[in-house]
């Protein structure tokens, strides 16, 4: 079992409490973890990574074991402590406040 911590709005969307667990078949990678997460919670499709390209949405980041894995290959094995459930895989919304898109105008 892999533990996943989702940001507030995605927990609300998925209807879950703070932490979810997913079962990954085969090698535990970011890709297989997200595949399993989206299979268990289909409403999350498109909110973490693009439907078609499967690329991470630009304002989300992946943290685990004190490391930023956002730029790592999604096919690299996850750290052992994440793969065996000792530590969670964290999906975090980047701090990007102060948007100037205050008005949907023009």
């Amino acid at each position, binding site marked *: 079992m892999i533990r996943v911590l989702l*940001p507030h*709005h995605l927990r*609300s969307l998925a209807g879950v409490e703070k932490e979810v667990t997913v079962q990954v078949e085969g090698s535990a990678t970011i890709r297989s973890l997200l595949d399993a997460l989206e299979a268990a919670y289909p409403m999350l499709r498109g909110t973490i990574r693009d439907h078609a390209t499967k690329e991470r*949405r630009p304002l989300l980041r992946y943290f685990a074991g004190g490391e930023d894995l956002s730029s790592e290959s999604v096919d690299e094995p996850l750290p052992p402590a994440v793969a065996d459930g000792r530590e969670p895989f964290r999906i975090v919304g980047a701090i990007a406040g102060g948007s100037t898109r205050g*008005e949907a*105008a023009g």
Partner: protein
Amino acid sequence: MSSVRVLVGTRKGVFVLTADGKRKDWKIEGPQFGGLPFYHVKGSPVDPDRIYASQADDWFGQVVHRSDDGGRTWRAVGNEFKYNGEPGKHLWYDGTPHPWEFKRVWHFEPSPTDRDTVYAGVEDAAIFRSADGGVTWHELPGLRSHPSGPQWAPGAGGMCLHTILLDPATPQRLFVAISAAGVFGSQDGGVTWSPKTRGLSSNFLPEPTAEIGHCVHRIARHPSRPNTLFMQKHWDVMRSDDGGESWREVSGDLPSDFGFTIDVHAHEPETIYVVPIKSDSEHYPPEGRLRVYRSRSGGDEWQALTRGLPQSDCYVNVLREAMAIDSLDPCGVYFGTTGGQVYASADGGDNWTALARDLPAVLSVEVQTLA
């Protein structure tokens, strides 16, 4: 007794305001989805308890929520809006080619005849249709692949398709409006489209009367007059009496003919409403006075409606989706502001009250008249 339900999409969630047919005592529920921006929330005319809501932000992208119980509970439905084939390029702000990229749904238009059919107008501009209540979406690609597509350009809010007009009497006939491409009409259910911009003039274009490139902000129509269209353009209030084949300006004596929203009275097809905004550089009401203007002659001659609206120091904006009209008699008129106020008139605009004063910035207002 009849009642009304006002659906308010804001920058930080959805609010539902309800009242009986007297429209005096209001109950405000929300926020639902607190903290998340909602560009549009609209119910089905066939089944008013079915409501679609467009959540779109930079973090999590597009989520489409559907309620089947009048907005009490929601579930996420399909959020995959895949352009048909190679998306191609349109013009960017500086006139250079820019790839077509889906960003968000600006507008839902539920079918007036089928509860499971709903259209979505999106940024970058395209129209999608769902026949299963929003679970799956399919583009009507004839619009985006119109030969003029590479000439379309974004307005300040993005290259959004924000107006979709369906005609219950002639279901094959559709109109859409895009900022900043213009108006397009289809006579074959959305397979083929043609520009409907003759008579429009926009000074920001190299050729002001060009067929493509007008920043249309909103189009409204009375159901009894399918050939009469009213438009709030970036500048200019316009009307067409021949189904968009030609347009003429009806700004008349408005204090400013810039604005975003426009709507038509429920029972008087020649009575229309706009909210003048000072300019495209300032985005607030002229003289700091929030006034709805009503014309009972389909334009040209306008009357300021001020009773109950702030007449000093008011610097809010009223966005394109943020006005709606119920079908009671007299009809109620509703609008929301970027300052978080929702104003309502239960007498066709003569007198206004604030239903809410401190909501998040209002992006959309729709009203349902319930039996």
